[in-house]
């Protein structure tokens, strides 16, 4: 199954390279991938489509894993990585950057977004933890509080300055377009670190589902596992938001799908979430390019338009809503 998904992801990637306002035949795509011959097709593929495809896959993987960890650690099916305040932190930092420093390029946004996400993450982590480590309910409440606070700052700025709003409203929608590979290299270290933490905390996650006591008696240090998991969520979500703006839904929906496919063993759910996330975001990005051709629907919007009803159907058809 895992292999199948991996193949599907590769196929989706190729599709993403081929389709768009100008459809290129797959043969051409493969040729141009292997040697850049300066033709128009090559330009399209290399400068426009490779970056967005790579980003779509990366963001999808990051958010999928973050969502799975998030729901596992909070033991709450409502949990979404955005609840930890990270996305709000990124947005706020971006708006501040636009307003006070006049930053207007996406690479610039990315740095600020990372910083904002990091600060918000640390704050939420600190507020939501007691001596026993991060507490699920407190963490989410803290995330909601910090998000609301940062959102109010964001709104305060955009409501007063139309120019800032003008730039911000395009970023906040979540989009893979207009970015070049530099954005990818910027966020890659954070995503890699986040995935590493995720991998380290996943085996323990199964045990944590049984409660802290059982986990501790089986040799785990609960607070360390939780800290690792939460750090992973924050890194991954922060980096993903920094790269493409907030893309909602992936972290919420993908783990449910992954559990459908992979059961409740987090050692499977997390990798499945990664692949399904990458698949989902890539495909929605492609859909966004095709639906209103030659214009484009941003991936954040399409994600919600498809993800929303799909999620509703999913919830309806699950007999009992449990983790």
């Amino acid at each position, binding site marked *: 199954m895992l292999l199948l998904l991996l193949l599907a992801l590769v196929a989706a990637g190729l599709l993403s390279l081929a389709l768009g306002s100008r459809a290129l035949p797959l043969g051409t795509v493969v040729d141009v991938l292997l040697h850049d011959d300066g033709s128009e097709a090559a330009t399209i593929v290399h400068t426009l489509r490779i970056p967005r495809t790579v980003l779509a896959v990366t963001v999808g993987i990051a958010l999928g894993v973050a969502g799975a960890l998030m729901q596992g650690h909070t033991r709450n099916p*409502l949990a979404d990585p955005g609840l930890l305040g990270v996305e709000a932190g990124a947005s706020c930092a971006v708006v501040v950057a636009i307003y006070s420093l006049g930053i207007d390029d996406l690479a610039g946004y990315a740095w600020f977004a990372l910083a904002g996400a990091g600060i918000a993450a640390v704050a939420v982590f600190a507020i*939501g933890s007691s001596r026993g480590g991060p507490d699920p309910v407190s963490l989410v409440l803290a995330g909601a*509080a910090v998000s609301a*606070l940062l959102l109010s700052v964001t709104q305060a700025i955009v*409501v007063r300055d*139309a120019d800032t709003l003008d730039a911000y409203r395009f970023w906040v*929608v979540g989009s893979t377009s207009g970015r070049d590979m530099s954005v990818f290299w910027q966020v890659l270290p954070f995503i890699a670190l986040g995935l590493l933490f995720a991998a380290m905390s996943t085996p323990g996650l199964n045990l944590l589902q049984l409660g802290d006591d059982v986990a501790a008696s089986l040799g785990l240090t609960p607070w360390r596992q939780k800290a690792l998991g939460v750090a992973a969520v924050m890194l991954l979500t922060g980096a993903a938001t920094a790269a493409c703006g907030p893309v*909602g839904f992936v972290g919420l929906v993908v783990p449910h799908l992954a559990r459908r496919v992979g059961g409740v063993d987090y050692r499977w759910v997390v990798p499945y979430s990664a692949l399904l996330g990458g698949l989902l975001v890539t495909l929605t990005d492609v859909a966004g390019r095709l639906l209103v051709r030659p214009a484009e629907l941003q991936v954040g919007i399409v994600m919600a338009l498809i993800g929303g009803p799909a999620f509703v159907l999913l*919830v309806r058809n699950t007999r009992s809503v449990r983790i």
Partner: protein
Amino acid sequence: MAVLHATPFRLGVASWLVPVRAALVSLVGGGVLFLLVAVDLSVGDFPIPVGDVIRTLLGGGDDAGQRFVVMELRLPQTMVAVAVGAALGLAGALTQTLARNPLASPDILGITEGAAFAAVAAIVLTGASGYGGGLVSGRLQEVGLPLAAFAGAITTAVLLYLLSWRRGLDMQRLVLIGIGLGATLTAGTSYLLVNARIQDAASAQVWLSGSLTGRGWEHVRPVLLALAVLTPLALVLIRSLNAMLLGDDAAQGLGVRLQLTQLGVLFVAVGLASVSVAAVGPLAFVAFVVPQVALRLTGGSRPPVLASMVAGGVLVVAADLITRAVLPFALPAGIVTAAIGAPYLIWLLIRTNRRRTV
């Protein structure tokens, strides 16, 4: 001497159990609210001493000019703040108790997002925003927007109910579907904003931040009406709601009619949230945080009803006061409610976690 937890209050055959701490909090909160209202009414271009304001409110006051400013000009805006605050506090307390989840609030059920979508659509599609992205003016602001928002909220609520109903109503499922609906509607709103003229987007953004300015009696009346009708209904449902906290099985064993109670509570919560968002736009954080704050103040096992209403009124009026008197520039109230409410919740959380032992 043990601290009294709850005391029975009897009147002939009738009897109620009054939770002492919650009653105290409500009373003190009510006093705070009255003071805040008086201060709120006293500030403005034409400052009036607070003592005179209180006299005028209580029926006295000999200055016709003062009375005009207080009762006709300023009172509507303050009243809308109190009413919306109470309505959202109650709606939040009810939803969180019903869903048995502190994260639940009418907002995450998608209703506020539905209202926002409809309102933004109204602004963007009719292109009737004021110059420079100020407040939408004229007929649209007075009638069109509230109506659109209300219609959006109610439609979303009905859709939510239909989608969640499947041989009964499972609250977990309802909340999840609400989140799904909400996210979809937000995407729709973002789409509208991205494709609108910048002036329309700016106007929409003002509405989306929740604004109390420029509200007249025509905005207050629907909210007061909703409160008058729905609050008694909520009080009657509270008994069954209390029993439902023990789980669906135990509640049914105690004779609670589950479907009816769920429907009733949702009806009240949705109604209150819808008229609120229609009147002032989304004041999202209020319905979520106020019941949690009230819960921690009264120390009970569920968000208290009356105290949540009072606390909601206090928060929103305080926000109005701050936007009018304290800040050097105008800011929509929704931003201020979040800016007040969030740090307080954060402080409460830190305090709770410090005390917690491993």
